[in-house]
């Protein structure tokens, strides 16, 4: 495991050298938050006036959306899938297979570091933008910050694993990114735009037990309505899905590696 932490550390160190890319990401993130704030203002009718929609005040709704956008901006789903599928399709994977590590784990840790680096900047940006636009969040205590950050970290890691596992499909199919696109859109509809409570009753348990909840809705709900029970529920869901997708990924990798077809040289 030490070597994978070394991969994570090295990838993180490499990311620190590309600050300009991060800056553009932060600026566009702040603009998007402002646009969504305007949109939700309209939906809630003016300044909200204390109105609740499915138990969410305007203030809570926008804080939820800020957290969801942080996660969406941190993990570039298509980048993860492409990191895997491009290596597989182009044969570049061959140059990594003669190293003493598992390629799948190497990529997951390497990609996670990139996204954690973004998360480190997007969280304070989101909080500052939120405080400027909305003021403080009700019933929020600073002791919640650590479990929330832990949950965001797990969500980032899980999302990387899920989209990386999709990327492994490139061993069998020519183009894996359409699958990423579909999953990403589901993630946006069921996680980014609305909390689970906004959906029909019959759909809510499906969302809560789905990976989307562990990737997005769960950690975002923690920010607007923190409880230790909810934290435990979200963490169990995240860890379970991490284990599940790691197992799926390793199985796909084990079988896929035999299909590596690299000609030329």
């Amino acid at each position, binding site marked *: 495991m030490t070597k994978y932490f*070394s991969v994570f550390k090295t990838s993180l*160190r490499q990311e620190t050298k590309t600050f300009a890319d991060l800056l553009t990401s932060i600026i566009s993130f702040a603009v998007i938050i402002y646009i969504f704030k305007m949109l939700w203002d309209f939906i809630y009718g003016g300044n909200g006036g204390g109105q609740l929609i499915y138990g969410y005040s305007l203030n809570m709704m926008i804080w939820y959306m800020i957290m969801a956008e942080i996660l969406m901006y941190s993990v570039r789903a298509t980048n993860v899938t492409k990191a895997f599928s491009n290596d597989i399709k182009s044969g*570049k994977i061959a140059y990594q297979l003669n190293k*003493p590590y598992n390629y799948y784990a190497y990529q997951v840790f390497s990609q996670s570091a990139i996204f954690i680096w973004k998360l480190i900047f997007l969280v304070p940006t989101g909080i500052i933008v939120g405080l400027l636009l909305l003021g403080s969040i009700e019933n929020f205590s600073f002791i919640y910050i650590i479990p929330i950050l832990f949950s965001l970290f797990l969500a980032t890691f899980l999302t990387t694993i899920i989209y990386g596992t999709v990327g492994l499909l490139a061993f069998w199919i020519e183009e894996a990114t359409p699958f990423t696109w579909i999953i990403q859109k589901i993630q946006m509809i069921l996680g980014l735009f609305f909390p689970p409570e906004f959906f029909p009753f019959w759909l809510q348990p499906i969302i809560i037990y789905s990976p989307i909840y562990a990737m997005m809705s769960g950690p975002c709900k923690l920010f607007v309505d923190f409880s230790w029970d909810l934290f435990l529920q979200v963490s169990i869901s995240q860890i379970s899905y991490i284990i599940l997708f790691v197992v799926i990924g390793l199985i796909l990798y084990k079988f896929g590696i035999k299909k590596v077809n*690299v*000609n*030329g040289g």
Partner: protein
Amino acid sequence: MKVIEVKNLQKNFIRKEKAKKDNGKKCLFKKIKITKNAVDNISFEVEEGEALAFIGPNGAGKSTTIKMLTGILYPTSGEIKVLGFNPTKNRVKLSYEIGTVFGQKEQLWVHLSAYENFKFFGSIYNIKKDELEKRIDELANIFEIKEFMYQTVKSLSLGQRMKCEMVASLLHKPKMLFFDEPTIGLDPIAKETLRKLIKKINKELHTTIIFTSHDIGDIEEVCKRVIIINNGKIVLDDNMRNLKYHYLNKKIVEVNLKKSVKLKEKNGITILKAKDTLYKIEVDMNKTSIDELMSLFNTEDLQDITISSTPLEEIIKNIYRGKND
């Protein structure tokens, strides 16, 4: 001691193509399998400390063979043993014993310094901190990289980068090093330096070298043995000295005479070009001699003469084409 043992190795690549109807048009759904024998039943052995060139034209199967030796590709049939390991079953264990340098693919993190990269590779190969520092220092002296190893990799020249790539591959003291076109894109001086360093690794560190390159100069200078592979089969497996002795037997003689004469071809003497008083003649030294050639004209008429060997590159090209007579 044998470090590589390959027996009846075969690798088939299967691709699917749409089947054709009787009228020559492609079927909509029906597909047929097309099998290509990339490596066709080859066998060879490599002794510890050898410097072996594994060469062949594009698509010959050399890269496929190297990738099977390093465990990247699974063979269709046959046996491989590299340093006592079966590469397909023990790829990770084998990776601790071998190193790879690819001229066309950098393994270093470009935004980090070479030194930071060495630290990373040290942790990947489980090298202890003190031991790693010692090894970096030792290799930095051999490769003369101390003055630039703290710069980011992206700011290094290609030659400097290749030196750092080699150091990264040697940190874990591999018993065998695979080089895949390490001098590609380098200027002649950088090429020369790199070739010398590879020879040094082979001689001083007793590392077995497996070398693939299209640059015959690399092979001539670095390797003592050459395996030529074409259409998946080994067409030549000999040491460099024998190759030169047997195949460098043709001399190219260019003569400039005072007056135009009519030269007659003889057994082993072929007139390649004749223009005015200039003649380009090929002399097969196995069949005749330069003296025999000189008897074809009056030596008093000789203004200028140049004798050269057929370049090794030309010979290897002929072997690729199957004209190795």
